[in-house]
């Protein structure tokens, strides 16, 4: 019985993903195989780069959602929050043109504003949940409606468009590459690494897990439960604002249909990645794979006309269920007794 002491599981330090991540990784590989079989262009550089860039939005938001969910919360407002932040950013930047011209300053003002709004919106969600003692589901359902209608109001039901001159300055943030990778992908990578470190290598991450696992244990361990929970929403807000900062230069506009259903996609990415919806166990690595899986499904469906367009949703639903099943089935069990 001394083996237990002798062969402690080596924490696979910067090896990065933990072993269980194998499930989603395999699901992703299978999907890529299917994509390639349908159309070799799937693996073309252009498509891979498109795919990664698209994953960046949902991925960045999902990194934030991993914290919220790990700590036992949920945030349904992220899609609407992204829309309203994008809207306000555009209004602010258009307004700043008069004073600051169409240069980098204006763009930075916009980004600063986005970050402040993101943090603020997250903080509101957090405080209503913790201090207001209202179920997170209700709070964020409420703010979801509020943000969505605010952006509609700001846009007068239509679309807010960024001043064309600023677009020139801001465009590269979405369209340019650096070292072969588009900038949004770099942002995604940085956010993922920071998220991973925060969740797995800091006390904050442990506190999130502890709170999600058992709130009273956390409280009895002198953890400031309310503060940590609020912080998870703030991180979520920050992630949304980062995602928005790289989203706006893409089309330079925001409307009431911006970010619709992103919340479900983000939560789905988190859960496909193996994080437990009820909290207490979170995996950033899995979340990233989850985001990639979701984007790849959509991408593959655009690559074939074998199935009726109308059945896209069916394929999507089936693939999500199968992908999660893959990691829960015998697979999961094998790794567990390991």
């Amino acid at each position, binding site marked *: *019985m*001394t083996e*237990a*002491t002798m*062969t*402690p*599981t080596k*924490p696979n330090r910067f090896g990065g993903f933990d072993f269980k991540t194998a499930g989603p990784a395999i699901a992703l590989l299978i999907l890529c195989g299917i994509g390639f079989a349908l159309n070799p262009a799937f693996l073309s550089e252009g498509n891979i780069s498109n795919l990664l860039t698209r994953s960046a939005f949902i991925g960045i938001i999902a990194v934030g959602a991993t914290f919220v969910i790990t700590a036992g919360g949920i945030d349904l407002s992220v899609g609407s929050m992204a829309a309203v932040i994008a809207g306000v950013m555009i209004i602010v930047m258009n307004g700043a043109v008069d004073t600051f011209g169409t240069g980098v300053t204006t763009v930075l003002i916009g980004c600063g504003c986005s970050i402040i709004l993101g943090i603020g919106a997250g903080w509101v969600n957090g405080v209503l949940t913790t201090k207001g003692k209202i179920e997170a589901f209700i709070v964020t359902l409420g703010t979801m409606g509020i943000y969505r209608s605010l952006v509609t109001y700001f846009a007068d039901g239509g679309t807010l468009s960024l001043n064309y001159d600023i677009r020139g300055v801001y465009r590269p943030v979405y369209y340019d590459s650096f070292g072969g990778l588009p900038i949004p992908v770099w942002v995604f990578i940085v956010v993922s690494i920071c998220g991973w*470190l925060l969740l797995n*290598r*800091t*006390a904050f991450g*442990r*506190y999130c*897990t*502890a709170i*999600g*696992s*058992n709130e*009273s*244990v*956390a*409280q*009895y*361990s*002198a*953890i400031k439960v309310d503060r940590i929970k609020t912080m998870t929403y703030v991180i979520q807000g920050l992630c949304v604002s980062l995602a928005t900062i790289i989203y706006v230069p893409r089309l330079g506009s925001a409307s009431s249909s911006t970010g619709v259903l992103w919340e479900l996609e983000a939560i789905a990415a988190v859960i496909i990645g193996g994080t*437990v919806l009820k909290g*207490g*166990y979170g995996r950033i690595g899995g979340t990233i794979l989850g985001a990639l899986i979701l984007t790849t499904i959509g991408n593959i469906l655009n690559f074939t006309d074998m199935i009726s367009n109308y059945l896209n949703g069916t394929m999507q639903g089936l693939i999500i269920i199968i992908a999660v099943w893959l990691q829960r089935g015998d697979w999961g069990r094998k790794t567990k007794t390991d």
Partner: protein
Amino acid sequence: MPDGQSINASVLAAEGVSKSFGSVPVLFSISMDIRAGEVHALIGENGAGKSTLMKILSGFLQPTSGHISLDGAEISLPPNGQSEALGVVLIHQELNLAEQMTVEENVFLGRELRKGATLDRARMRDTVAGYLEDIGLEISPDSRISDLSIAQKQMVEIVKAISRDARVLIMDEPTAALTEAETALFFSQIERLRDKGVGIVFVSHKLAEVSAIADRVTVLRDGQWIATQKASDLPPDAMAQMMVGRELSDLYPPLNEVDVDAEKVLQVQGLVAPAVKGISFDLKRGEILGFSGLIGSGRTAVFEAICGLAPIEAGTVSAFGQEGGFRSVAAARDAGVVYLTKDRKEKGLLLAQKMRPNLTLFALPKFLRGMRIDGKAEDAALERAIRRFDIRARDPNVDVGDMSGGNQQKLLLAKVMECDPKILIIDEPTRGIDVGTKQQIYHFIAAIAAEGVSVVVISSEMPEVIGLSHRVVVMREGEITGILSGDEINENEIVRYAAGLKRGEH
């Protein structure tokens, strides 16, 4: 040790502390002081208010009146375990670990060691590994709590407490789930801490332990302070009498002999299941069969497999002549085979619910009239159970999670008994139960066995197994090492089988 010396000055003291929950009073003006370098035992019946007092002494609850003083100065302890910063540490009676996290994460929860902005994981692991070794616990710091047995969890709690820099260490029934061997290891740690000048408060229902380790003893009864005395002046019998307030007769009832020809109600042949490696035994009608062994020896696993809670991989189980074991707990229950879990918090009771739904949950089909649950019958059952098992909840509408540990255990026993079992398997029947009630439960077990119910008692308390059982099965690492009967049933023999020093034919 003479009183009045500086090392024996009182560190932490409760002065005239009273506590009520809502309108229900639980403690009445209790005074108690803890000195540096002493082990102070607190004993009393279930529901006497021990846990409540401990929580007040460590800041988790605020007294309704009276006050706490630390180093002689009156103080209002900060809530939620923040008084750890003042050197006052409490191990809760109810396990207080985050299940999905690892041992290391739990031990350092809330006071992680850091290296710059990130955690110093290597140092934390090594520290925990060191503690685990000291206390003789053979698990890895990276094990998940949910994969540990209750006893191991309890040991982790102890490691957690020891690892804190405590001046006063308060432990609420730390040994309830431990075997004697583990208890001994634990006590050696306690002695080390005492010698370092830590004041230790320790709640236990195992009076022999109290005699063995405590310097002073405080007795509570029904929320009242009864006495504080030197442990050496107080033999266990006297303690029991002070707690219960009456003379206790023999703890163990006389055993009814089992009829030699009694039918074999349960026969197990070559059973292989998770953590069980091929065991065979049988159980006669009216027999009390003890199961002994070290922690993790697989006793629980055997009966979980038999009762349909875990898959049977090989071997046969036949109950009442019916081959084939049970596919579900419901099938086992309907056949009259019920299992009472040792893990009352995770597997036994719905802590957020009241007593009534908990009591009838297992035997619910019995309470149906047509489709409807018969509320009157439930009320009657609750009334009966409260009387029969002496369940003491001052507020009958209290959530079960807020009941005292011992009373939860009694409720759990009552819940299982509602099924009118023919084979009753009790895992750790008296964990956390006071002597008075213990005696009642032993007599109760003997009585139902006399009526023809077969009882399996899985227990880590050696005297209990010895005092109750007709035969004792000893397990080690998933196998049966011996089945003892008659005069063989004694502590010496059992320990030798359990440690693998001896193997019997059976």
